[in-house]
């Protein structure tokens, strides 16, 4: 029992369990005003609302207002229970027992039971995108309607952290939908909003689900969970791909909320008293990765020369038009696992030092290819500045601009000779924590593309420690070690963190910037 407690506390589940002991705080949230339709201008197209088989941000934006999971993350990214009332880890750490909250019903009117949970896990195991989450799981069962048990094949200290990931969450769906083919899940969940209309490429309309039962373990919405209530009658996500159109729509009141406001427009919007600007800091880590399978990026001195040549301010300024924060490494300062280990490698901006390192590396002016794409302007812009900085240091840097699918495919090829640096943005994974982020740098598939996909043994050792060490403190120390190694050996060039600006009309209340636009507990002031 003692064991269980400490683990749960470490996972942040204490809140859910300790609730009966917590002082009776203020009454739970209640809508100051109900009604209204909120139209939200979304940047990217949505093709499918199948949250189990889609990892795109645009899908999650909408789907996570419809679906819920057993466990999720709170405002500070701690693991919390959502559809579960409590989670119990067995002393041998080989099973997890979830007690389900009672009285929860799906949008189709059927009550949610452990059979639905088991069916959801069945579908996820079969076609879920992140089904490797369940690799160490032996099986699951539903001993009674309100209990769900996961049995592990081997101990995985980080299991609950992985299970609660919102990258491609294991959302709970009605049992009869478990055989829906990939991308075709019927959108029925347990969340505060249900789908009323979905036209891919155009809009999705959600309406209040009247049978929603809020999680009374909380008083307020927190992260993806907490006490949620639908104050709005409906929310319409409209796809508005032109940034200027989104801004104009917000100004005229045609849209009540938008995402991704260009920095240039923020200045003007700030003067508009009808608009509230909501910067969402740490949206992603702007990053470039070397291809260490081919020369000259296989050479440490060359990679360090590039590191010395980079000035993070100009790169980030171009990437974001000025809305950024300098940031060392792969986590953000507000996160518990943040470390500035390896900070001496960051933002050196010293062309002379770069030139000296270049000389040591034996570089002879071979053309260097920077691979980027124009689907994500921030990556293209960052690559453009990096090219200029490398040229200033005496490197014959060329841009190769392709589209996103091509750049991903090229960058993932083993022993590729087509590129030297690949530009990307790490969004969801850093937000999920160090573990989720560093898998980008672990083999197989390590993003610095080591020869034959065999990662640097020291880095791999640190990665194993991050996963397997029994205590959180030890795992965090392993993360700091891994980050320092990666930065010192220049396997990645994280430039800083990018701020994404959301904005709403001033009468839209309690809309807090978050990784998805959350519409529970948001109301329109009358």
């Amino acid at each position: 029992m003692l064991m269980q407690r400490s683990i749960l506390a470490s996972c942040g589940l204490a809140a859910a369990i300790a609730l009966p002991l917590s002082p009776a705080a203020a009454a739970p949230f209640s809508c100051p005003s109900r009604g209204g339709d909120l139209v939200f201008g979304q940047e990217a197209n949505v093709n499918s609302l199948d949250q189990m088989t889609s990892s795109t941000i645009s899908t999650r934006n909408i789907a996570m207002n419809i679906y819920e999971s057993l466990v999720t993350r709170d405002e500070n990214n701690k693991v919390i229970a959502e559809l579960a009332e409590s989670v119990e880890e067995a002393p041998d750490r080989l099973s997890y027992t979830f007690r389900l909250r009672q009285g929860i019903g799906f949008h189709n009117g059927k009550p949610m039971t452990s059979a639905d949970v088991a069916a959801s896990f069945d579908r996820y195991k079969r076609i879920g995108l992140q089904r490797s989450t369940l690799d160490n799981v032996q099986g699951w069962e539903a001993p009674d309607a309100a209990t769900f048990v996961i049995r592990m094949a081997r101990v995985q200290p980080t299991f609950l952290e992985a299970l609660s990931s919102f990258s491609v969450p294991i959302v709970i769906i009605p049992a009869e939908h478990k055989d829906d083919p990939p991308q075709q899940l019927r959108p029925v969940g347990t969340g505060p909003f249900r789908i009323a209309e979905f036209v891919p490429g155009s809009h999705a309309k959600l309406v209040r689900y009247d049978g929603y039962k809020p999680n009374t373990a909380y008083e307020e919405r927190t992260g993806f969970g907490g006490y949620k209530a639908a104050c709005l009658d409906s929310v319409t996500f409209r796809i508005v791909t032109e940034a200027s159109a989104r801004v104009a729509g917000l100004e005229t009141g045609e849209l009540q909320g938008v995402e991704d406001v260009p920095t240039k427009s923020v200045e003007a919007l700030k003067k508009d008293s009808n608009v509230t600007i909501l910067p969402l800091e740490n949206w992603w880590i702007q990053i470039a990765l070397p291809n260490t399978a081919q020369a000259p990026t296989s050479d440490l001195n060359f990679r360090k020369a590039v590191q010395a040549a980079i000035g993070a301010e100009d790169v980030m300024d171009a990437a974001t038009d000025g809305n950024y924060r300098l940031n060392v490494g792969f986590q953000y300062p507000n996160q518990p696992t943040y470390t500035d280990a390896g900070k001496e490698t960051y933002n050196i901006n010293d062309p002379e030092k770069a030139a000296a390192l270049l000389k040591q590396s034996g570089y002879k002016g071979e053309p260097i290819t920077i691979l980027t794409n124009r689907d994500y302007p921030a990556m293209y812009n960052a690559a453009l500045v990096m090219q200029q900085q490398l040229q200033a240091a005496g490197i014959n840097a060329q841009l190769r601009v392709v589209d996103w699918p091509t750049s991903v495919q090229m960058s993932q090829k083993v022993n590729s000779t087509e590129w030297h640096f690949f530009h990307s943005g790490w969004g969801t994974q850093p937000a999920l924590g160090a573990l989720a982020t560093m898998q980008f740098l672990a083999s197989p598939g390590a993003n610095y593309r080591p020869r034959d996909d065999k990662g640097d043994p020291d880095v791999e050792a640190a990665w194993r420690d991050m996963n397997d060490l029994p205590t959180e403190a030890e795992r965090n120390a392993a993360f700091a070690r891994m980050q320092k190694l990666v930065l010192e050996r220049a396997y990645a060039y994280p430039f800083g963190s990018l701020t994404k600006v959301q904005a709403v009309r001033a009468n839209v209340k309690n809309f807090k910037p978050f990784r998805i636009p959350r519409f529970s507990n948001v109301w329109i002031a009358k």
Partner: protein
Amino acid sequence: MIGVVARRLLSAVPVLLLVSLITFGMMRLIPGDPAAAIAGLSATPQQVQQIRQDLGLDQPFLTQLLHWYGGLLQGDLGRSILLGRGVFASVMERLPVTLALSAYALVLTLLIGLLAGILAALKQNTVIDQLAMAFAMIGISLPSFFLGLVMIIVFAVHLGWLPTGGYIPLTEDPWGWFRTSTMPAVSLALLQAGLLARITRSTMLEVMRQDYIRTARAKGLSQRSIIFRHALSNAMIPITTVVGIIVSLLISGAVVTEAIFSIPGIGQLLTQAVLNRDYPMVQGGLLLVTGFLVLVNIGIDVLYAFLDPRVRYE
């Protein structure tokens, strides 16, 4: 007549077969695959690899080709990778949007184009003629994507008269449809109206120089009767051809216009499919669209033969 139509339909088969072969080959030669597109930005390499396996993208080229034609023979156009839905259903869902927009643009084109062309011909060598032709010249010289962007800046951003984008179906809210469709329709129509005005003017002028018009004039028929009874009806023949060409232009026009105004039509569907490497969608969708265009052209030819008794198939 029926025999002629049947023969035209039959001759379209090898064309469509070639279209499908070209599409298939082209799509497989494009680098990048749908896995990366589906995975989006924040996916890990493992997730991308997972999708790739799930989609069976590792099958040999010939197997995939045979599989696609096999399905086609059974009337199955395949299933979109990205949307997870049947290609035929997806196209049929988007088609009304593009058709409604195109119809609106066509009405504007006919109104503006015919009016400007006829006026210019009647008032040949006057200021009206010059103005109409200057308008037509600008119409055919304005890039439609530039016109679309400028209209957004002026009418949506600065004046706030029209919404910046989006689409409301005609069946749902006619006024909303009108508001969301006007800028896209105008940006589609201006080029075509310019073309039509130029053709109408030159055909009218040519027709009016013909002997029978001179005869009609000599007989003292009213100017109005000459224009409508004789000149315009004869000018309809080349104009019909032009309208046929305009209809086939609309899909191309829709690609750019729909992207700028966020309209969920067939143009967006196909562009997204190409950019996301949604092979079945591109193959099936293009086959349907080209098939549709071929049908339109046959229809125009039939209409042409109907309007002009002199045109007879050999």
